[in-house]
């Protein structure tokens, strides 16, 4: 069969699976086919990985070589440009986003030692008193989504700290995890440390159950089962938001537009909600004018900046938006309540959309969609901080120091940015969503004082 062929990789070795699934792109064209891993192949991968897993950290040199290969090399016939094109067509991601993500992953690998150092408390606690940070288990499972390549850095982190890794790639976008796997193996990673298993959701759940630690990305439906798990951490809808409590200047509008539309609105930390102490309609109208000016060539063009979706997802989005725009919500962007446009290549572009509502409890408040989509709703001080919470990032555009202190203290807000700071801005060790090193590692005391200062002596 022509086109791209993706096969599972079990403990470093490609396996041709008899189970095949077509890979259809956003235009409705057959891009290639995926050999999928049934549960028994996953069972075999887990058994073999566990037998060999030794908890050894992966050297930073190897990771840097892998990062370089990932960004620049021809891997299994896939050039960096071809990788970009594949991700764009399979997941509908703009190519600029894919390039940004490659840079993100390279940066994340480069900073990994600094990130880990920053995430762990000091270990030298006096002469003869040390804390050892060791992997809390041996196997790590990553169940990825297809929205953005950058989150793949989480399983690289686990690998670096000593885990053997099983990755279930996104169904629509299996390419990033595969390319990283190939890059790591080409850089000299021991084969048993990595398995790449395109599979059904149920097999992904098995992989999470079978591992000692895991991460799962996806909508509420995909992550719900693991919400209270001690061994699986979840990355669900970010519902990132802005509190706008200052005059609406051009500078603020630029900031809001970039916060919502950078990477085509596909990041979990793109904002999807503006809570304003002013007039929601006025804010939404001004933001809509910026959104209406956003334009992009087709998704596979090198300078594409806005995403597209396939026909089925377009229909799903159309129905969802139809359900959200009633009940007092007003659409301010020019395309109106049905912003899905069929492009000549057969894909569908959800045009950037701004809604406003006077009701802070309107069902559209807190909805996050995979394109530039923002709801503007009112917030009054009497509403308290509850409406500001349940957010991956809360951006405070306010001078109210008491409010800032209150949201920093609120456990349902996972990151606070102040002023015209972009939601994804951070330095190594600044939590994106919690502290991955602490999740992956366990501390233990190592005391080597001998008989010195014996309490009973």
């Amino acid at each position: 069969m022509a086109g791209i062929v993706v096969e599972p990789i079990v403990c470093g070795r490609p396996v041709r699976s008899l189970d095949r699934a077509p890979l259809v792109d956003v235009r409705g064209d057959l891009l290639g086919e995926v050999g999928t891993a049934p549960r028994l192949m996953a069972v075999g991968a887990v058994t073999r990985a566990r037998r060999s897993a030794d908890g050894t950290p992966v050297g930073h040199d190897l990771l840097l070589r892998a990062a370089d290969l990932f960004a620049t090399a021809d891997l299994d016939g896939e050039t960096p440009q071809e990788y970009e094109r594949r991700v764009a067509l399979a997941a509908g991601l703009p190519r600029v986003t894919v390039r940004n993500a490659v840079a993100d992953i390279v940066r994340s690998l480069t900073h990994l030692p600094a990130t880990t150092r920053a995430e762990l408390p000091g270990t030298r606690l006096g002469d003869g008193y040390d804390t050892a940070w060791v992997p809390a288990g041996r196997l790590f499972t990553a169940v990825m989504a297809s929205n953005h390549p950058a989150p793949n850095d989480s399983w690289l982190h686990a690998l670096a700290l000593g885990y053997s890794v099983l990755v279930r790639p996104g169904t629509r976008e299996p390419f990033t995890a595969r390319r990283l796997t190939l890059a790591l193996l080409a850089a000299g990673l021991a084969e048993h440390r990595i398995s790449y298993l395109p599979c059904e959701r149920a097999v992904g759940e098995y992989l999470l159950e079978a591992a000692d630690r895991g991460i799962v990305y996806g909508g509420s439906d995909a992550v719900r089962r693991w919400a209270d798990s001690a061994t699986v951490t979840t990355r669900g809808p970010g519902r990132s938001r802005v509190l706008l409590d200052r005059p609406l200047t051009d500078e603020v509008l630029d900031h809001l537009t970039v916060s919502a539309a950078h990477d085509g609105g596909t990041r979990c930390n793109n904002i999807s909600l503006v809570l304003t102490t002013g007039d929601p309609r006025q804010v939404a109208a001004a933001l809509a004018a910026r959104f209406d000016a956003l334009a992009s060539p087709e998704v596979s063009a090198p300078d594409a900046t806005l995403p597209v979706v396939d026909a089925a997802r377009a229909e799903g989005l159309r129905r969802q938006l139809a359900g959200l725009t009633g009940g007092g919500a007003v659409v301010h962007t020019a395309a109106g309540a049905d912003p899905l446009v069929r492009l000549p290549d057969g894909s569908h572009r959800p045009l950037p959309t701004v809604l406003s509502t006077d009701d802070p409890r309107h069902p559209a408040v807190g909805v996050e969609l995979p394109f530039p989509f923002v709801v503007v709703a009112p917030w009054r001080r009497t509403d308290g901080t509850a409406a500001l919470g349940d957010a991956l990032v809360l951006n405070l555009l306010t001078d109210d120091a008491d409010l800032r202190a209150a949201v920093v203290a609120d456990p349902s807000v996972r990151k606070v940015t102040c002023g015209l700071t972009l939601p994804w801005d951070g330095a190594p060790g600044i939590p994106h969503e919690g502290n991955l090193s602490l999740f992956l590692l366990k501390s233990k005391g190592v005391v080597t004082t001998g008989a010195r200062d014996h309490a009973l002596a």
Partner: protein
Amino acid sequence: MNTMTTAAVASSPVETFDERLRRLLRWHFDPQTGSPFWLRQRGLLDFDPLRDIDTAADLVRFPDLTDQLRHVPVGDLIPRGLTGTGFRVYESGGTSGAPKRIVDRDYRRRLLSWAMQRLRAHHIADPAHWLHLGPSGPHVFAYDCARYAALGNGLFHTVDFDPRWVKKLVAAGEADTVKRYVRHLLDQAAEVLRSQPVKVLSTTPPLIEAICADPELHAAVERNVETIIWAGTSFSPESLRQVEEVFFPDTTIVGIYGNTLMGVAPQRPRLPDDRHLCVFEPYAEAVWIDLVDDDGAVVDYGQRGRVRLSLVSDEMFLPNVIERDTAVRVEPVGDATVDGLAEVGTVAEVGDVRVIEGVY
């Protein structure tokens, strides 16, 4: 003994399926011999089954009445011509609503004697003691396997397994309870294997997967069991290859396709030119299976179609049943007179576009 068949249903050895069909239609629609169920139906049909049904292809004129098997008193299904006692009641899985019930006395014994010959063609362990790690209770799978074990002069070990409870737990998202229940099933099996010389294991694909995920139990099965018979749900081609080549390379693996209504269709021995790892062959004497497209036309060889079957025996008449299963149609080989079925799967759930939530 009440296992006689009447003169009216005595069959000649060279009778074709169509000849048998015409003879058994006279039996099922004769007021003296037919069942109350079919005699009631006769008046509701817009054709005369004795005049208008000539060949297997005509059976599609019957409506699919299997939904009525969910509530009709099963005694009404017994043909009046079959006097006496000894009928058993079996139920279908009960995934979609109330289970369907059938009655059986001798048909299944004949069917299973034939099926055991088919299993022996794979050189299964025989004679051998069996462990059945599969549905029991009203489900027919356990009865079938008990019969195979008896035909092979073996003892038959069972576990308690209620698949409907598992389905309820799965539907409720109770994944952890499902895990514990499966563990409970595996523990029962491990206990039998610890002390009993079992050589045949009959079970389901999900339980084979669970055994393989438990290195200790897997080793115990590999050590003791010479033959694994699987049925109940399907294996994907790669799954089956994993079972045969990776997990149980020295064990004889035989699949059986089947369901409560039609009976069983064991895997036929593999041939050098086979394109599929596993091809099932139905019981030509009483079961007619077509694999059909959305318009009801039989698909070509090598194509996937939905299972449409008819069961024509002296005890049960179930024409034109549309199953949820699909399979690839395979040309008959050797002395087989009926098509084979490969890569059985269920009809894909018809597409509600799922709600998109978040950026995923």
